[in-house]
């Protein structure tokens, strides 16, 4: 059996990563609709779909390890393969976090309206970030990846909004709802963190440099221009 050329292997891996990101984004969208509309059976769909994301991750890892063993990759290619394995881990975790949100919906405790409104925004933002990460994985475009890296602050802002809601003396929903809302906020935030981690990996994979350095150089370049 002829060895699959590295270029082809790499393209296949990129496609798998893209699929994974798209699936994780869809899972978050579904989980968020289930949360918004209090639909536990819709949440069930998120739980059922998670195995497919896990399977894609295993496939990325198999492909990358096979390429390492058979294609004798050199420095840059090796970096790409290791980064792909890591991205797959991050995206799998995004899927897991969507299932945590879905499980929370299934527990059936009501989420106060003002918190729910923030989660709807966090869900939309997270799903867009996953789609953005899908495009980054497919195109390996560093500029797109850096854009994603910058959206992290917006997510942190939403997280603060949620904490401020619960800590406001006017919060009238008690401790139980505050605990639920705190965990939900954390799941959304971590989802976004992992999407950003994918972008960081892609920057490193393409440039061989950490994202902070690349961002600083680009900003410096823009300032000079």
């Amino acid at each position, binding site marked *: 059996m002829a060895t699959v050329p590295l270029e082809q292997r790499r393209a296949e891996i990129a496609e798998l990563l893209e699929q994974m990101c798209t699936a994780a984004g869809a899972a978050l969208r579904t989980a968020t609709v289930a949360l918004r509309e209090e639909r536990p059976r819709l949440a069930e769909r998120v739980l059922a779909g998670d195995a497919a994301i896990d399977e894609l991750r295993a496939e990325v890892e198999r492909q990358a*390890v096979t390429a*390492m063993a058979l294609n004798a990759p050199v420095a840059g290619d*090796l970096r790409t393969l*290791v980064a792909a394995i890591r991205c797959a881990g991050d995206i799998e975790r995004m899927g897991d976090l969507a299932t945590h949100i879905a499980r929370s919906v299934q527990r059936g405790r009501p989420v106060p309206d003002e918190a729910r409104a923030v989660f709807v925004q966090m869900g939309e933002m997270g799903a867009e970030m996953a789609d953005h990460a899908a495009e980054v994985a497919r195109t390996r475009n560093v500029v797109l990846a850096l854009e994603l890296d910058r959206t992290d602050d917006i997510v942190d802002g939403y997280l603060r909004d949620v904490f401020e809601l619960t*800590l406001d003396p006017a919060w009238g929903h008690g401790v139980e709802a*505050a*605990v639920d809302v705190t965990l939900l906020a954390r799941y959304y935030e971590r989802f976004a963190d992992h999407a950003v981690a994918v972008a960081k990996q892609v920057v490193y994979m393409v440039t061989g440099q950490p994202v902070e350095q690349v961002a600083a150089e680009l900003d410096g370049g823009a300032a000079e221009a």
Partner: protein
Amino acid sequence: MRDAYLEQLDGLAEILSVMCGQVADALEKATKALLESDLQLAEEVITGDTLVDETRSTAEERAFALLALQAPVATDLRIVVSAIHGAGDIERMGDLALHVAQAARRRHPQPVLPPEVAPYFAEMGRIGVDLARKAGEMVRTRDLAAATAMEAEDDAMDDLHRHLFTVLMDHSWPHGVGPAVDITLLGRFYERYADHAVAVARRIVFIVTGQMPGPLMV
């Protein structure tokens, strides 16, 4: 050639083991800082986290060197890839210990924990630290004897975490929403710390036996 390779592999395992020790120390200090409102100790953990990150970079450079220079195949390749995963898990454990220390610092000089939940965190801290040390030992020796005990400790961590929520959600909880929010997040940090330690152990089991014990929940 083979000897040099094995030596490098041992070197890589040693670095990961050292990293486990670093994050065990970090959680031990962070927990003490949390329980005793010790600002200085909290600061130590917060500044110390960069050392963990540096150790991770060193581990990764070694792993890359192994992959590039020795072109390992089959099992050896799995070991190096597992090491890269493991380094990621251990770094995350360091981040979680850092989050605990940041919570202690944010509320200083006020205690974060009301007295009735402090024992939960003392015990979760003890288990977390022990899991990290056992993981470090397993990485170095590849002795699987501790694996079963680690799974049991992880279950104990999950039980504590669940009980903690029943305390918070009890209608007689007198401390209000603010402390409950802090405690919710802190509980989650400890639980995730344990998950990552167990993930490291499971990878070692996988390397030694060729079989993954249970799903990787991390």
